[in-house]
Each structure stands twice: as C-alpha cells, then as structure tokens.
C-alpha cells in the first residue's frame, strides 16, 4: 500500500485514498483561520480564541473516550489544575509562557497518575462517577486552600504570555497576537494528537475501546495503555488550562463548574467522538458560534441539553459526518 506523505494524518493507521483530501482540508482550514483577523472584529476573534482554549480539553476527552473508550468527567479538573499551577508558577517566578504551558500540562498529567490508579480499576458507571468525584474534590480544594488559591476570590492579574526572543522578547497583549498564539497552539495540539493516535500505541487504545479482553489476548497491556490515555488526556487539558488562564488573566473555582465540563462533552460528542475533525468542528461550532452570537448561558445550556439528547439517539457519530460524508479517523462507528 502506497503511503501518503502526510502520516501525521493517521495515514498509516487508516490508510485510505482520502488522506490527501483530509490533509488538504486541514490546510485550508488553517489558512482560513490564519486569514480570519483580516475580516473578523475583536469580538469574533475573542470567540475564536475561546473555542480554541476548549479544543485542548476536548482533544483530551476525545482521546480517553473516543480512542480508549472511557467516559471521564475529570477533564475540567485537569484543566483547572493546569490553569492554577501555570498561573501560580508565573506569578511567583515570572516564568516564560512556554514553560508555563509545560508546567500546566505536566502538573495535570502527574496528578492524573495517582488518581488513575484507583479509578482505572473501575469500569463503566463506577469509573464515570469516580471521575466526577475528582472534579468535585478539585473544586473543594480550590475553594478552601486559601493560602494558595485565594479561595472563591480566585487568582487575578495572572501575567500575560511573554514570548522570549533574542531581543528580549515581548508580551502578548493585543487580541490579534493572542489569536495567532492560540492558533499555533491549536495546530500543534492537533498534530500531536494525530501523531499519537496514528502510532502503534493509538492502535492499542482503539483495541481497548473495541474490546478490552480481546485486546489483552493479543498482547496489549491494557491497564498501562488506559493509564497512558488517562494521563495524556490530562496533559491536553492542563495545557488548555494554562493557555486559558494567561488569556483571561483570572481564574477561580468556577472553572470546575459543570458548565465547562458539559461544554467539552458537547464539543466531543456533537462534533464526532473518535475523530479529530469532529472535535475541531465541535469546538468552533458550539463555542465560537454561541460566543459570537452572545447567546445567554441558560439558553446555550438548553440548546446543549437538547443537542446531547438528539445526538445520542439520532446521530451518535456526531455532526461531522453530516458536514463531510464519511471522513473517519478512529473507525468512528463506535457510539460514545
């Protein structure tokens, strides 16, 4: 089988003639987004930035749910951990932006490991509830560890991103520069995600999603890969949290509210679980559009609720297949 050059698009997992097309679609999207500041106003750019901050935890959820087959509600807990740790590091030591991102991602990933040890022994509902528990406990800690998190007040005046360069670097303040930063970060995250799921490890994760026992019977150390998926999903969320906090410059325990967790779930399920294009589509469709139209939160939540109900029964593969017929990554026939 001839390999297309763009293996970042999973070509050697799901080698099929459509990969050229997919790479082209991705390139067009990136170019369109790069050109967006020419036409979009500040508020639209802000909406796009917000949707890109949600893209990261959504990719994480997609990894654990769409590829490894576990529904986790801990995603926003890891997002919050990433945000807090990154903000605190930057405030205390004035660390550069890239280092903060790494700190946010690592902190979330490291916390995920001890949480995963008990949680990954559980299956189905028990796992779901356990991860929900992590989010509640994370919020309680954020509210009550006042000496560090300042409780309900939260942290404010979190430093804006500083990009270190040969001439000393500069601080990112304008909305357009934020936008490009977010875009670069999103493209990198999507590429990293594609690389991961198209590796042999990604194939093992899909095997676990399909049938854990069968996967073990062909030599998959299932526990290890479930743990890796859990920790990496936390890393994605943590990096997202880090970017979020330096953009908004404030963070409070409300990040652990169900609102955010539900948004991430809607992005992944609504866009198309087990696909990358679906998650990208989902975050733009559900976050950017509703942000840009300034839809009130309660109306938005009603729409999300109806959407979740309709999606699970009517189009469990998400909206992506409706947008582009049959463009599949993880053999997306799997229902959430």
């Amino acid at each position: 089988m001839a390999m297309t050059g763009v293996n970042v698009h999973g070509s050697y997992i799901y080698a099929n003639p459509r990969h050229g097309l997919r790479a082209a679609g991705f390139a067009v999207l990136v170019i369109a987004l790069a050109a967006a500041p020419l036409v979009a106003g500040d508020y639209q750019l802000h909406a796009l930035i917000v949707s890109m901050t949600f893209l990261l935890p959504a990719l994480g959820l997609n990894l654990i749910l769409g590829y490894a087959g576990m529904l986790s509600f801990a995603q926003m807990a890891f997002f919050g951990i990433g945000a807090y740790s990154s903000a605190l590091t930057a405030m205390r030591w004035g660390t550069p932006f890239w280092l903060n991102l790494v700190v946010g991602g690592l902190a979330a990933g490291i916390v995920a490991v001890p949480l995963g040890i008990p949680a990954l022994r559980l299956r189905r509902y028990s796992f779901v509830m356990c991860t929900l528990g992590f989010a509640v406990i994370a919020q309680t800690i954020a509210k009550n560890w006042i000496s560090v998190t300042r409780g309900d007040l939260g942290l404010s005046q979190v430093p804006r991103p500083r990009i270190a360069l040969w001439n000393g670097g500069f601080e990112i303040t304008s909305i357009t520069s934020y936008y490009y930063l977010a875009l670069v970060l999103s493209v990198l995250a999507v590429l990293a995600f594609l690389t991961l799921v198209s590796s042999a490890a990604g194939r093992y994760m899909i095997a676990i999603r399909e049938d854990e026992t069968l996967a073990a019977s062909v030599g998959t150390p299932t526990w290890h890969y479930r743990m890796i998926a859990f920790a990496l999903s936390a890393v994605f969320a943590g990096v997202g949290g880090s970017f979020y906090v330096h953009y908004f410059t404030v963070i409070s325990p409300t990040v652990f509210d169900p609102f955010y967790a539900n948004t991430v779930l809607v992005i992944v399920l609504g866009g198309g679980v087990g696909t990358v294009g679906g998650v990208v589509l989902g975050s733009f469709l559900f976050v950017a559009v509703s942000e840009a139209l300034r839809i009130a939160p309660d109306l938005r939540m009603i729409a999300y609720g109806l959407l979740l109900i309709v999606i699970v029964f009517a189009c469990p593969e998400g909206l992506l297949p409706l947008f582009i017929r049959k463009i599949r990554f993880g053999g997306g026939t799997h229902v959430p």
Partner: protein
Amino acid sequence: MLTDAVVNGITAGSVYALVAVGMTIIFGVLRAINFAHGEFYMLGTFGAWWGIETLDLPYIVSIPLALIIVAAIALAVGVLVMKRLIDQPFQIGIVATLGVSLVLQNVIILIFGGAYKMFDGGWIEPVEILGISLSEQRILIVVAALVIFGLLELMVHRTRFGKTIRAVSQNIEACKVVGVNVPVVVIGTFVLGCTLAALSGVLTAPVTVSLYGGMGTSITVKTFAIIVMGGVGNVSGTLFAAWILGLMESFVASYLGLQFRDAVAFTALIVVLTLLPGGLFSKRERF
C-alpha cells in the same frame, strides 16, 4: 453540638434517602444512571414554591400539586427519552440524562430567573422531644422517609408492579420473552422514582429555605455516592447509606467546617468504589 449534628445528619440523610431510592430502582430496571435525578428534586421544590407564591396555596396543598406537576414532567421525559434507553450501551444513558438535566435546570432558570428564592411555608415551629428541640418539619421528613421506605419494601415484595420491577431488574431478556411490557415498567418506575425525588424536595424546602435552578446538581452527585454505598438496587441499604452520608456530612460541617461538606460524599464514593465495590452491605459487585 453533638445532638444537633446527629439530628441534622439524620434529617439530611432521610432527604437523601428519598431521592436515592428513586434512582436505585430506576437503575435496577434500566441499568442507566439518571443524571437528571436531582433536577426532579429541584422541580418538586419549585412546584411547591410556585403554588405558594403564585397561586397563594397553603403548603399542604402545594405538596400534591408539586408532585402532580413533577409526575407529568417525568412521564414526558420517560416517554421521550428513558424508554429509548432500554438495551442501549451505558454511555448513551449518561449522555441523554445529562442532556435532560441541562434542559430542565436551565428552563427553570429561564422562567424564574437564576437568583435564589425564599421558600415560605411548612411547619418550622420547634418542638421539644426527649429534651431535644427540633422543628416539626424535620420530624415530618424523618417520619415520611421511614413510612415511604416501609411502603416501598411492601410494594417491591408484595404487589404485582413491585414484582415486575424486580423481575425486570434481574433479567430483562426473560421478561421480554414472557411478555412483560418492559417500556411500561421502565416509564412507570421512572415516574415513581422522580416523584419520590420531588417529594423529598418539597419536604426539605421549609428547612433549607432557599431554592435556585442549579440546586439539583449536588443532589444528583450525592445520590450517586449513596447508591454506590448502599449497593445498587438495595432499598434498605439505600436508607442506611443515606443516613450514614447525612451523619458524616453533618459531622464534617460541624467540626471541620461547612465548606468541606460537599466533598464528603465524593470522598466516600471514591473510597467505597475502590475498596468495597459491592457497597457497604454486600459483597457482590453490582456495577
């Protein structure tokens, strides 16, 4: 302080018990956890509040009014959503009921606004029993919980509907083969379970006083903790687990601080899940 903590714990536990037992029977027949369960508790509270505030009804009349409203909503949700969950993979149930919860919660916020409301009703006069002073409403809550659990035990073991529920819980396939109308059982159980949650909300409102659209969420998550501790499908286990949670919360609130109260349920949940997968009262793994 100690007696206060115990009284509060038992009251809160009885409130939780009424909510959780509904969830546990729904789980039994449908094998789906209901993320919207706390919303029915919230709807019950709002139903009674609306009766009192808008229709100027006395509390005693607003109780059945709230229950009827909630039963009707539950029936609609049952027919539109829950019925379709039969034989579906478990994630479908989680996502669909989460959707229901978002809709119910935010429709209430849309109609009545997101601000806290005051509940003005109930019997909150303190009475003295065995040297302990407590409000009549608290006594009512505990008595109601005991009576309802008694009735539920009777229903599950004696009545035809109860036996059908048990049969469907044990073997849904066999029930289909022998011609049990599974969708009707599922909807019936769902309406019953949600109405119990609503009753709990109506009875608690005079004690908790404030109400708002988002109040159901924390109830839902506490309910998870209780059904895991009690062992899924175990009616009397649910009551004891609820009391245990109520007492733990009340002790944590009195001796450690109120802000830690809501984390108790989840800490208990995680500990029980990982150490005692069958719950506190059973060795068998039920999830």
